[in-house]
């Protein structure tokens, strides 16, 4: 399913973004190898530094919902549909795939890809706990990227890696600033997270785009949960709510840490992408809970939409705990399945939730006026 944006400003921005990205991809199609990567535990700077173009593998319109291959329907619907995503136009020219082991299902899904795909697939083990076995996991990551480079007849340039780190730091800073001020819609943030464009290109684009001003009357929402599909975020934004905080792997969490420039780039990237990663499969989960709580407070959110994919364990089984962490804030949990989207149910529930938040906001504003 494709997202349909009612807000013309957002639509314009995304259209410009898509045009630029398509241009890049067609220019680079014959120049640089395209390397697909999964999840936040992949330091894209290393892919760039070896002279390849990284492209995040995310739910993409046009995938065949029946093409789930050898994975049962009670597998996470993202992992299950990976083979199907990879057959869409966007990913058909991949030269290789790489990813850090995050949850068990993702690990197994990568295993399935290794078996079934014609291109090389690299999976490196990554820690679940914090501050454990750093040298082991760092070597795992390094070795996988070196093998990836070798498979593409490329080499990682450490000097270039530092430059890409710099560029990405600038992008992170800019994004954080825009998000804090409410000027960067979440749908665009997701586009950026999935983009193959270099950090510099994205920054240029952000300069050209007219910034959106936050509407103080709109309910401010935190989006949490599994990787969203292709249409959910647009449906939320259509209701008039603003997603000002996003802790999915496509949202604010991807930009929260700046990397060090000095020192070994492998080690620096390991710290940002592997060690400091705050996905819900990490233990103890309190680090993520604290981050979510703090973000909710700082962005002054009115409500949380907690959207999980069916059979996603890290997010799905943490929902109740997240709700308790954010107690006092309205919380709505929804399930989604990428293979059978329940669009009408979703609209009804989200619509009702946002209406409720809007009514509360109006009530609060009235009371504030009376008090004055």
């Amino acid at each position: 399913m494709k997202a349909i944006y009612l807000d013309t400003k957002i639509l314009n921005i995304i259209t410009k973004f898509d045009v630029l990205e398509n241009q890049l991809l067609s220019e680079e199609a014959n120049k640089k190898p395209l390397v697909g990567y999964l999840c936040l535990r992949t330091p894209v700077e290393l892919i760039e530094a070896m002279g390849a173009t990284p492209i995040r593998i995310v739910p993409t319109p046009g995938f065949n919902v029946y093409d789930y291959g050898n994975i049962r329907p009670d597998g996470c619907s993202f992992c299950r549909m990976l083979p199907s995503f990879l057959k869409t136009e966007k990913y058909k020219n991949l030269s290789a795939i790489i990813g850090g082991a995050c949850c068990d299902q993702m690990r197994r899904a990568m295993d399935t890809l290794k078996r079934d795909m014609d291109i090389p697939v690299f999976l490196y083990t990554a820690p679940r706990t914090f501050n454990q076995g750093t040298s082991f996991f760092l070597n795992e990551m390094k070795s996988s990227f070196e093998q990836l480079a070798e498979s593409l007849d490329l080499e990682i340039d450490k000097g270039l890696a530092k430059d890409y780190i710099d560029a990405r730091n600038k992008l992170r800073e800019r994004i954080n600033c825009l998000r804090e001020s409410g000027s960067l819609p979440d749908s665009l943030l997701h586009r950026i997270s999935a983009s193959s464009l270099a950090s510099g290109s994205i920054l240029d684009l952000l300069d050209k785009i007219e910034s959106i001003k936050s509407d103080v009357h709109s309910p401010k929402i935190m989006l949490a949960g599994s990787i969203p599909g292709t249409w959910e975020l647009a449906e939320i934004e259509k209701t008039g709510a603003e997603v000002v905080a996003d802790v999915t792997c496509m949202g604010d969490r991807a930009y929260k840490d700046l990397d060090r420039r000095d020192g070994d780039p492998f080690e620096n990237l390991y710290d940002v992408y592997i060690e400091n990663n705050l996905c819900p499969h990490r233990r103890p989960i309190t680090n993520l809970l604290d981050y979510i709580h703090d973000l909710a407070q700082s962005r002054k959110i009115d409500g949380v939409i907690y959207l999980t994919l069916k059979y996603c364990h890290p997010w799905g089984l943490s929902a109740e705990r997240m709700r308790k962490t954010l107690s006092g804030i309205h919380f709505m949990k929804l399930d989604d399945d990428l293979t059978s989207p329940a669009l009408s149910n979703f609209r009804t529930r989200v619509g009702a939730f946002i209406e409720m938040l809007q009514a509360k906001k109006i009530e609060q504003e009235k009371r504030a006026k009376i008090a004055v």
Partner: protein
Amino acid sequence: MKPKQIDYKEWHRFFKSIPDDDIENTRYYRHLKDAEWSQYLFPPSTHLIYGNRLLRKLKFDNSQASLRLWGYVLSEGERIFRARQTNMNIAAVMGDLGAVPPLIYSFKNVTAFYPDCLWWTPFLMESSVLFDEAAELGIGEESCFVRAALGAFSKRAYFPKPDISIGTVGATCDDMAAVISETELQGNKVHYFEHPQRNDFATDNRHLIDFLRDQYRQLCSQLEKITGQSFSDTQFFDTIEKVNVLRNIIKDIKSILSEASLNTMGACEMMNIEFSALSYYGDLDECILVMKNIRNEMKKRQIDKTGYDNQDIRILWVTPPADLLLLNYIEELGGRVVGSEYLINQTTTAFRTEGDPFEILAENHLKGSLMGSSDFRVKLVLDELERTKAEGVILSGVFGSSHCPYETVPIINALRRKKIPVLAFDVVSPGKKRLQSQIFNRMEAFMESLRMRRVKYAR
């Protein structure tokens, strides 16, 4: 006495003929000479009264050795409480399924248990109490049955609060990882053990052994703190020797099971036997005695060429079923479970008895069924198929687990390539009678088709 499977009523009556001395002298924690509560040779009806309702429906082997096995297994819960009462240290081990306990037991006065294994409790009790409790805490039907462990932690009635909880995370099930996390947030301090992913195509996994060795060293420091003892190589190797004895006994038992001319032991008993290798049901020494007893009984039956009548279709069972009734049912239909792949490959081979203790533990740990790719599991199944010459395979999964969705189809495809019929289904929660009856129907049809195959290939 001719071997057969009897119900709990028959056992209640047969129990009258069990010698008083045997009841008096069959005890756990034998080092506690004055413990009046340590007897465990009691029939299934005793455990039935205290809530294990499924025992009404099960069939049991009619040997005293089997009675002892059941009594030992079913008294594990009480045993852990008694361990606390007699000032033993208690370690709850989660997620690794049998790799870690040898280190724990190498400390004196410590026992270990697996909260994961409480996944059988809702089935034994025919009750959703533990599942309901877990659901209240946010882990519901989209998770595997191990969520019962969370219910048990919350209720505080199934085991005492452990002195240390060891949670394995990494290349292992995420639903268990979620349970571990939630128990931690409930106030149960967890020592996390990282489980790296094993590359099954690599020729050299030295770096993984080194990593695991370090994990074991860290765990050992924690155990030293908890127990107030220093780790002792001598004690470790004594423990390893015992664990090897147990593993070899189980291996013998499995060989007898598949090689004897008739079925020498029931599938439920066999699952209890195999799972003893995880944490020895709380008493390593007694566990060895129980298993030796069973092995002797089975050996005798093998030599005498006695066993159960009318169980001739050789079945390999893949993934342990939480519902024991399914194992009984296949036997009622004439099946003979001659082999299994119960996700516990890490408990099957003997440890090295010389070298660095932590390296020895790491090497064993690396054999885990779930640490690597699905291909590894497929290989385990095919190897077991070859060993047991099974005619059909039953693959019982759990809806919502993290490994079943990925392994089921590769296993089925591999078996089909070998032209071995396979029946795959998901075990249903207690109380879902209609869903369970469709599983029974499918098992009946499967057995019929296996019988027809025999006729067809005989021609």
